[in-house]
C-alpha cells in the first residue's frame, strides 16, 4: 500500500480507472464488473500480464471486438462482443462460477450504491417499491474473489455519503469490500477500520467532516 497522498482536483473516471489498473498485481486473474470497472481494462499494461475472467465462461478475454472481429458467440458478461487472447479457455457456467466462488480470482472490481464501514456491499437493488429486482452475478462476484474492490462516486446527487455506517440499500454481500476508489478519495477497509489512502480535491479533514464514519489517515 502506497503512502498517503493528496491532489488538488477530484479524479476523473479515467484517472480512477488508471489508479485501479495500477494497483492490480502483476499476473493477477481479475473480473471487471459491468459499468465503470470495465474501463479499467483500458489501462492495464501488457507487462502486467493480467488475465481477465468473464463469468459467462471465459478466461483470457481480450479487448472489445470491432469490425470483422465481432462474433455474437464471443461476448462478455455485459453482452458486448469481445476478443480472445492467446492462452484463453472456455468453460461452462457452473465451472465459471465455481472458479469465482472457490476464491481463485485475485481481484474483482465492482460498482456500488453503498459500502459500509465493515465492507458490506450494496449494488444490486435499490429496494424502491415497485422496482423489479435483478441480481445477475452480483452476489457471486461480491464474495467470490480474494479481494473485492469498488469504484463509485463518493456522494449521491443529494450530497450524501455512499460510504456509510450501515447499509440502507439491500445487501449484495457482507464484509467483502477491501478497497473503494472514488473521485474524492481512495479507501482501504481492513481489521483496523477505514483508512484513507489518498484525497483528491478535498482535504482529509473536510472528508472526515462529510463522512458519517470514523476515518484513519493513511501513513
Amino acid at each position, binding site marked *: 500500500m502506497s503512502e498517503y497522498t493528496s491532489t488538488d482536483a477530484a479524479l476523473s473516471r479515467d484517472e480512477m480507472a488508471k489508479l485501479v489498473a495500477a494497483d492490480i498485481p502483476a499476473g493477477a486473474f481479475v473480473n471487471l464488473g459491468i459499468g465503470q470497472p470495465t474501463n479499467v481494462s483500458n489501462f492495464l499494461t501488457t507487462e502486467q500480464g493480467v488475465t481477465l475472467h468473464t463469468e459467462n465462461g471465459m478466461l483470457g478475454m481480450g479487448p472489445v471486438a470491432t469490425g470483422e472481429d465481432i*462474433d455474437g*458467440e464471443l*461476448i462478455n458478461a455485459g453482452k458486448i462482443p469481445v476478443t480472445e487472447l492467446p492462452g484463453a479457455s*472456455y468453460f*461452462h457456467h457452473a465451472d465459471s462460477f465455481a472458479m469465482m466462488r472457490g476464491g481463485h480470482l485475485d481481484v474483482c472490481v465492482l460498482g456500488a450504491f453503498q459500502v459500509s464501514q465493515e465492507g458490506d456491499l450494496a449494488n444490486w437493488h435499490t429496494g424502491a417499491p415497485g422496482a423489479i429486482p435483478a441480481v445477475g452475478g452480483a452476489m457471486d462476484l461480491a464474495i467470490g474473489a480474494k479481494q473485492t474492490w469498488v469504484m463509485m462516486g463518493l456522494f449521491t446527487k443529494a450530497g450524501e455519503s455512499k460510504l456509510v455506517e450501515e447499509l440502507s440499500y439491500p445487501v449484495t454481500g*457482507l464484509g467483502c469490500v477491501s478497497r473503494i476508489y472514488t473521485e474524492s478519495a481512495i479507501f482501504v477497509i481492513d481489521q483496523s477500520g477505514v483508512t484513507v489512502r489518498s484525497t483528491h480535491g478535498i482535504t482529509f479533514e473536510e472528508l472526515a467532516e462529510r463522512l458519517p464514519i470514523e476515518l484513519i489517515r493513511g501513513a
Partner: protein
Amino acid sequence: MAPRIATSAAEAVSGIHDGSTVLIGGFGNAGQPMELIDALMDCGATDLTVVNNNAGQADAGLALLIKERRVKKVICSFPRQSDSWHFDEAYRAGEIELELVPQGNLAERIRAAGAGIGGFFTPTGYGTMLAEGKETRVIDGKGYVLETPISADFAIIKAQRADTLGNLVYRKTARNFGPIMATAAKKSIVQVSEIVAAGELDPENVITPGIFVDTLVTIGGTK
C-alpha cells in the same frame, strides 16, 4: 439410447406439454436456441416454468412466450433489462411468478440436479434478502445458504456440432448453460449446426457426452 434426430425444430419440441418445466440455454443471444424457442411458441404448450438467465428480451423468443402468458413462472438471475418489457408488464400485472436466483447459484443448482446432489451450502447470497426463508449455516466462520437442485422435464439448448450418438461440442461463450442444463432435464433437446458420424469428434474434446442428449435437430449454421 442414441438420440432421436428430428427433421425440424417443431418435431424436436413436440413432446413439451402443458405444465412442463423447461431449461432454456443461452446468455444473451450467445447459445440461445432461438429456433427451438420459436417452435415452443408455435407448439402451444402453456403453464410453463422456464429456467433461463434472463426473462426474455425485446419481441422475440422467450419474451413472446411471456407476452402470450404461456409462462407461469420464471426462475432466473436477471429479469429486468432495458428491453424486457413483456416480462415487466406480466410481472407488474401479477401474471407471472418470479424466482430470482444469483447467477452462480442458478448454475450450481442446475448442476446439482444433474449430479444427484440433494442440496448444497453456498456462500453466495448469505445475509441478503435472497436468502430469506432459507436455511443458513456458519461453517468455519463463513456464512452459507442451503440451496436445492433445479431439475426439469426438458432442456432446450444450442451446441455447435453433434455426432450421431449425441456427443456435443460448443463454440466460445455460447457454451454457457448448455452443458449443465443437458444433465438436469429428463429430456434434452439440442439444436446444432451440424451432425457428424460417431468417431468424428475427438473423445478428449467432447463437452457433453451423448448420454445427456435425447433429441437433435440441425438448424442452419450460425458461423
